[in-house]
């Protein structure tokens, strides 16, 4: 499966990118992932009669933040996998490489 070419990028049907631009993306994503993960340990305050509901909410917020943090890692992994595929390729990349399990989110 071959397709159109991009200037300065080898012919690739499903993986056409500029590695100089895409290459740095995983590092940025992982940096934000680490920042976010470091802020997900939230204290559950004693709010009186509503303490149980507050604890549920705090758990929910913390869980969502962890989930988002995981998504950032998945995205970084996916880009890394594509970069590896690109580096190992001879310029033509099969469609199957466009699919990465982690991208289902």
């Amino acid at each position, binding site marked *: 499966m071959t*397709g159109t070419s*991009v200037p300065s990028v080898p012919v*690739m*049907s*499903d*993986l*056409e*990118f*500029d590695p100089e*631009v*895409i290459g740095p*993306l995983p590092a*940025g*994503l992982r940096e*934000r992932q680490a*920042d*976010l993960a*470091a*802020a*997900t340990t*939230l*204290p*559950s*305050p*004693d*709010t*009186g*009669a*509503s*303490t*149980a*509901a*507050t604890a*549920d*909410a*705090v*758990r*929910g*917020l913390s*869980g*969502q*933040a962890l*989930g*988002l943090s995981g*998504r*950032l890692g*998945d*995205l970084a992994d*996916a880009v890394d996998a*594509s970069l590896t595929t690109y580096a190992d390729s001879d310029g033509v990349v*099969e*469609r*199957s490489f*466009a*699919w*990465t*399990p982690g*991208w*289902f*989110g």
Partner: protein
Amino acid sequence: MTSLVVDGSSPGCRTAARELRRLEARTAAVAEHLASVRTTSGGSWRGAAGESFRAQVRSALVLADDQVARLRLVGPALRVLASRLDGVQAMMDEARRTARAGGVPVAGDALPHAADVRPEQGEALARATAIVARARDREAQAQADWLAVLDDAFPPLEVSRLDHPVPAMVRDNVRTWPDLTGADRALDFELPVALPLLPPALRRPFVGYTDVLRPAITATTGQIEDDLERDDLSLLERVGRGSLVGATTAVGAVGAIALCARISATRRSAPVCGKVGAWVGTKAGRKALEVADAH
């Protein structure tokens, strides 16, 4: 005895509010970064992989924006609750001073019964008790307002039918799932566009819907990925094995959520129950495959 104790810790609420503010700032930074990544990749990554990547970035961005909105609701409200608890505490202190000024003996954190004070202390006790009553009203209102904020932040899913369509990206990816046998053809099936009607008991806990579908898909693809190392399986066997683990994961998640609902867990607990159930379901599915492999 009339208690002068105020439930809740305002310093604890302020500490938690500060942490929520910190999380909000970092989540907002994530959203900003994702928007930048989407723009950057749009100009430098074409083809199906680029589109898939940007679809996932968009999805994560929605999640981040949603999270920021929620944190902006909950964090400041928690700070307001702390101030209101302080206000209630100040009223309780005033009630104590009023009682003592009238000669009422105040032992510990309670006003005595009217029957336990001398007649000349009765008026001061009545004034103090009235202050406590007003304080309790304010405390109740503060709690109700806080719970209303939590309800706004985590709205219940009022649906009679879980008709949220299967995300188009999932359908498209499955439709064009790479043929793992190497043959040049795509799988000829599609996912249903809607999930089936749910029994009423499951509607409310299904606020954790994404905690069912997502782990099921992840388990399915994870199993297929694991099976890539084996060369003794046909394509249908690979899809079947993945689907089995996905199905047990979904059943585990739904079962756990339903169980949590039965034991009166709140809807906010549903995602946690779903995660635990999904984990158990995945383990069960994989165990079943191990048993089948052994035979």
